[in-house]
């Protein structure tokens, strides 16, 4: 079974530029998550999708971050314009979404390391 795929793996941009990250979840997984992991901290949820609907974006800085999950499969996270404090690893995770919470394990992708100069 293929895992969660993310691209690019690394990205370096200047502040005020735009950037987009892509995630392909495990086939059949209904729930998709984007986490932000700043150096020295644990991952923090930015947004959670159930199929193609948003169920939690309470910690997404909506003035600059946006995300979509068209057709309930792949997802794109965009930052426009980027700030220095956006430097982090952006992790995508997916889970089946239809199982009991005790077994609805989240599987993580390798992440995209963003550096904003």
């Amino acid at each position, binding site marked *: 079974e293929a895992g969660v795929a993310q691209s690019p793996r690394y990205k370096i941009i200047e502040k005020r530029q735009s950037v987009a990250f892509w995630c392909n979840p495990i086939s059949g997984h209904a*729930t998709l998550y984007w986490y932000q992991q700043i150096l020295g901290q*644990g991952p923090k949820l930015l947004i959670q999708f159930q199929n193609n609907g948003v169920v*939690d974006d309470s910690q997404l800085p909506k003035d600059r971050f946006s995300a979509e999950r068209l057709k309930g499969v792949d997802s794109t996270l965009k930052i426009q314009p980027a700030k220095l404090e956006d430097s982090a*690893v952006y*992790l995508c995770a997916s889970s089946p979404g239809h199982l009991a*919470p*005790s077994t609805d394990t*989240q599987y*993580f992708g390798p992440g995209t390391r963003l550096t904003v100069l």
Partner: protein
Amino acid sequence: AQTVTQSQPEMSVQEAETVTLSCTYDTSESDYYLFWYKQPPSRQMILVIRQEAYKQQNATENRFSVNFQKAAKSFSLKISDSQLGDAAMYFCAYRSARRGGATNKLIFGTGTLLAVQP
């Protein structure tokens, strides 16, 4: 709001020895799940072990076991017979047991970097 605290930024263990990583959490909920995730240098987070709060029995997965103390809100991870491949960042995480939607998110601690000495 729930919080997770890992007070050991770094730990070191000799190969074949046993090490315990600490985690405490704060919640007002009575039912929840706790997890330990491993993040090797390649950065792909891998689930190591999970514990349901309603279960008194501590979870075990091969060389990995937990000491879950619900009243103390403590959830430590014990790694027995440590191997070089165990070197990684370990994160403790909390998730509400309420079904559906926004409550599925994982709340992570800041991590413990484990080094394994040959």
